[in-house]
């Protein structure tokens, strides 16, 4: 047999290297597929935090995608090493080893791709449910706001009239100091606007990924800084 060629038996062992826990990976992949489908099916009933779940899914997507990129690069390198070994008449053991590495990487990437697609589909489904819920919620919020009994109700309505062109209806609650807080979370963005008694308000922004923080305190209601505007624009673009 010429150098660089392998027998059918060797090819078989290359495709299914002993000890490689493929079944484990396949079980994980299948479990993930089933788990994600169940998540979408039950999401509405179990009342999950959609923004958080969507964000967690997007982080996993990013992780798997980056991992897969690395695996495919390693597989391509191993494939190139096998070709090099064949051309330079290296030992059969080296050729087989490089081929095994390449095939394992290609196989693993083949497992990753459908899992990644499941994550993407699941996230899109949850986004649709979230958007539907936020659409319904917007009307509830407007009713709540128009009937709000709070020492700062007028100020809350004034600030909301400014924010509503950029943001969706917030999570909102009165504070223990007779003020009122509105909160928005999406992806890496977290924003709080707290209306205080005395016609003033604070805002606080934190980016979960970059760690960036911005805030201003005791601003007169009706004034909006360029810093707040820039923050609103970045959230609206998310």
């Amino acid at each position, binding site marked *: 047999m010429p150098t660089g060629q392998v027998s059918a038996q060797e090819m078989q062992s290359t495709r299914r290297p002993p000890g490689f826990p493929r079944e484990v990976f396949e079980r994980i992949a299948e479990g993930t597929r*089933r788990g994600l489908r169940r998540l979408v099916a039950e999401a509405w009933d179990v009342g999950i935090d959609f923004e958080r779940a969507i964000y967690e899914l997007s982080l996993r997507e990013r992780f798997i995608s980056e991992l897969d990129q690395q695996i495919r690069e390693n597989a391509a390198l191993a494939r190139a090493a096998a070709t090099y070994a064949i051309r330079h008449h290296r030992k059969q053991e080296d050729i087989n080893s490089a081929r095994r590495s390449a095939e394992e990487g290609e196989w693993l990437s083949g497992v990753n791709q459908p899992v990644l697609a499941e994550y993407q589909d699941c996230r899109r489904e949850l986004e649709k449910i979230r958007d539907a819920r936020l659409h319904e919620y917007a009307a509830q919020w407007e009713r709540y706001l128009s009937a709000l009994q709070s020492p700062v109700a007028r100020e809350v309505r004034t600030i909301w009239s400014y924010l509503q062109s950029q943001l969706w209806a917030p999570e909102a609650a009165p504070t223990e100091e007779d003020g009122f807080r509105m909160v928005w979370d999406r992806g890496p963005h977290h924003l709080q606007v707290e209306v205080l008694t005395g016609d003033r308000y604070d805002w606080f922004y934190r980016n979960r990924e970059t760690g960036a923080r911005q805030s201003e305190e005791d601003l007169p209601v009706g004034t909006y800084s360029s810093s707040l505007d820039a923050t609103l624009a970045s959230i609206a673009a998310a």
Partner: protein
Amino acid sequence: MRELLTSGIVLRMAKERKGLAPFPERPRIEDFEPTEQEKQNPAAKGHVWISVFDRSRTTSAQIFAIRRIAESSRPVFPLPVEGITAIQVEGRTTLYVARDPLQEPECFQPGADGHCGIGDLARRSGEPRAVIKDLCSQLVDAVLILNEISFSETASDE
């Protein structure tokens, strides 16, 4: 001397729901803001702790019983101690979880020995309000989500 936790899960009971939220089950900033009672806890020795329970010693049902609140009437949020003790804002040390024995008569109730406090959530003199907003928002993020369902199933889930 504080007895600090370094691992495990602690449970924080949500406050009574006020206001409006599109996703009512999610933890909110106010769930982690100290109550007036929590601000007065002498065991914190000048710090401010919010009340939590060590999940290895106290169940959710026991928390409701200790607090004399109808069972399951509010969410109870699980937080990993490692996640809490990683929370920091500039100019402050990280948060911590300390054991905080309950006083009589609560201390005689089942599960009372799991009571702990997360500190320090005291706003210092001259400190911007943003510091506490920041800490509370990070505590919200530390809550373990999807504790009822997960992104993956095992074969035994079938």
